[in-house]
């Protein structure tokens, strides 16, 4: 596979992977936060779905 536009090293672009990690970490923590603050009734109702057919 031919590549023409090589980056010479990671320096200067390292911010992008860090940014990606921060974005995911943020979204993930937000998901955890929300999951723990969902109403118990809703959770119970949803967890019973396989039993209702």
């Amino acid at each position, binding site marked *: *596979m031919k590549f023409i536009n090589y980056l010479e090293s990671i320096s200067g672009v390292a911010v992008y992977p860090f940014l990606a990690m921060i974005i*995911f970490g943020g979204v993930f923590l937000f998901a955890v936060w929300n999951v723990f603050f*969902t109403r118990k009734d809703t959770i119970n109702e949803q967890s019973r*779905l396989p039993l209702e*057919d």
Partner: protein
Amino acid sequence: MNTNIERFEYDNKIVKQFAYATALWGVVGMIAGLLAALQLVYPALNFDFSMTTFGRLRPIHTNAVIFAFVGNGIFMGVYYSLQRLMKARMFSDTLSKIHFWGWQLIIVLAAITLALGMTTGKEYAELEWPIDILITLVWVVFGINMFGTIIKRRERHLYVAIWFYIATWVTVAMLHIVNSFELPVTLFKSYSWYAGVQDALVQWWYGHNAVAFFLTTPYLGIMYYFIPKAANRPVYSYRLSIIHFWALIFIYIWAGPHHLLYTSLPDWAQSLGTVFSIMLLAPSWGGMINGLLTLRGAWDRVRDDVVLKFMVVAVTAYGMATFEGPMLSLKSVNAISHFTDWTIAHVHVGALGWNGFLTFGVLYWLIPRMWQTKLASKKLANWHFWIGTLGIIVYAVPMYWAGWVQSTMWKEFTPEGQLKYQFLDTVTHLRPFYALRALGGLLFLTGVFMMVINLVKTIKAGSFMANEAAEAPALAKKVEIHGKEHWHRWIERKPIQMLILSLVAVAIGGILEMIPTFLIKENIPTIESVKPYTALELEGRDIYVREGCYTCHSQMIRPFRSETERYGDYSKAGEFVYDHPFQWGSKRTGPDLAREGTGRNKKMDSWHYNHLADPTSMSPGSIMPKYPWLFTSDIKVENTSKKLAAMQTLGVPYTDEYVANGRDELEKQAMVIYESLKKDEAGLLLGEDGLSPNHEIIALIAYLQRLGSDLEVEKNKESNLSQK
């Protein structure tokens, strides 16, 4: 509230078809595995016949159990649970049929082509390009059918099992497409688009995530549906299942490089693989605990209910395998376990325990229900459970032991500083362990036969309900929201958003590991003396790939004293820049071949000739198969120039002149090897056709003699410089 009750029918026929296919291919795949296991004890069972040789049988076994047995198991579970969770019949019966028969066609084509040696040489992705396209088409059909069903559903909330199905679909599509980039040369021959280190990274990103998104996430979906069904109680924590889902799919995708520790892959990528593998322990065990705790307060039922027994052992095996996986990703542990039978033990705890037992549990639960009867014999099912469990233990324990023994024997030095054992010593030492492993496999397979008998009896006694009547209120067009709503509720109702977010979560890891490896020059330092293969060597390499030599031989010397002493200088990334596909291997049943053509490993052409005719003639006690067909069939020179041209397209610097004269160049080099063999003719084990420069064995010898020799040139240059 919508009171408009709708009547409809669930399609059980498609579930039945996938269930039959699961059982059938399970038996076929496991018989292939048992034969492969026995070949390592009794090499005569290779039958000196190309199609039944270990190198071709092993991919047949792995493909059959993964894509045929587990694949059909996934579709069986999905088609049953999706309809009920969505309160809707499958979107289209025709698409269901196309999906079923398309998948079976892929399996049959896979079995035939692999037996014929048509392979890409990339583990678990061996199928050639026309079959790859067929897989893509059938997968799209499955996707349309699944999303169509979700869209016409009568239940607003998408239960967590369905998220796992959606993530499976999108990730498998991504993995399959990216890893299958290959340049076709003929109808059943192609070269990987990637080379060397890059090919290795893409391949193990795929390989690891085939485990994650084919053997794990769909089965977790099945677990989240069928364990509550079998136990008749909701999952322990639905909250935990949401976190389990997002954490698992995000983290899993990064872990691929742990298959390449201590190799020529850049260190930063190896470290990322390790870090994410350790993190993976949390969601994996979260899922396992969630599955097991679903049975809280109902453990007494596990004693009587064989379905629950299978499921409990399956989830426990999942827990064990996902604890072991992160441990094996630690570099210090991996230094011992990698390339040994330890890995084989690890994957079989997952495959036999998690996938096998969960499939059996689901089959025992589904068949009596769909045939409206009771299981024919609970006693026989219990026997299956115990013999299967015993089979797993008898399989795994000797393999763990073998792996440890193998590794320590490879690494042991005498007080004088010499390697204590020849490689062959480890092979002969391990044969009793291999025999025990085969016994474990036989026990497991016996259990499967018991299950088949039991299920056939059940089916005969019952009456099949092809269409199961159901009713549910139609889904209101407008969502009524009472009070404050959390954002995740919004995604849970939207399958397409769920698909996109899943794709984003799984794409991040792959992108961040692959793009730098492809684009940053310093990751793949080039070596001036590394030159492209000659025409004859390229043909020899294709034979090496065709015969599946990589299933037993690695081409990757790790930077350990025990390896550099045995095989020569450690492998460098720059050595593999022309290797489409890479052939690093993942298991050393035989020795590493990266420097087979140089240094202390260099052998005469006649040694290779005799060794491939009858390995025991050169290495008494060897368990390598004989390759008599290489001594009678001719090299297919008509495609040589085409192959060189394809390599040129992929960036290998052949001149146009060399490509055009490929055949002549090949014949010239073949004559040199032929002449060298001719000198030793008296000592050769000649085949019935005698010695010929046209035979495939000549090309294979040329390739083996080339391995590692480029670096020898570099070394000589360095020593000349230092002398000056």
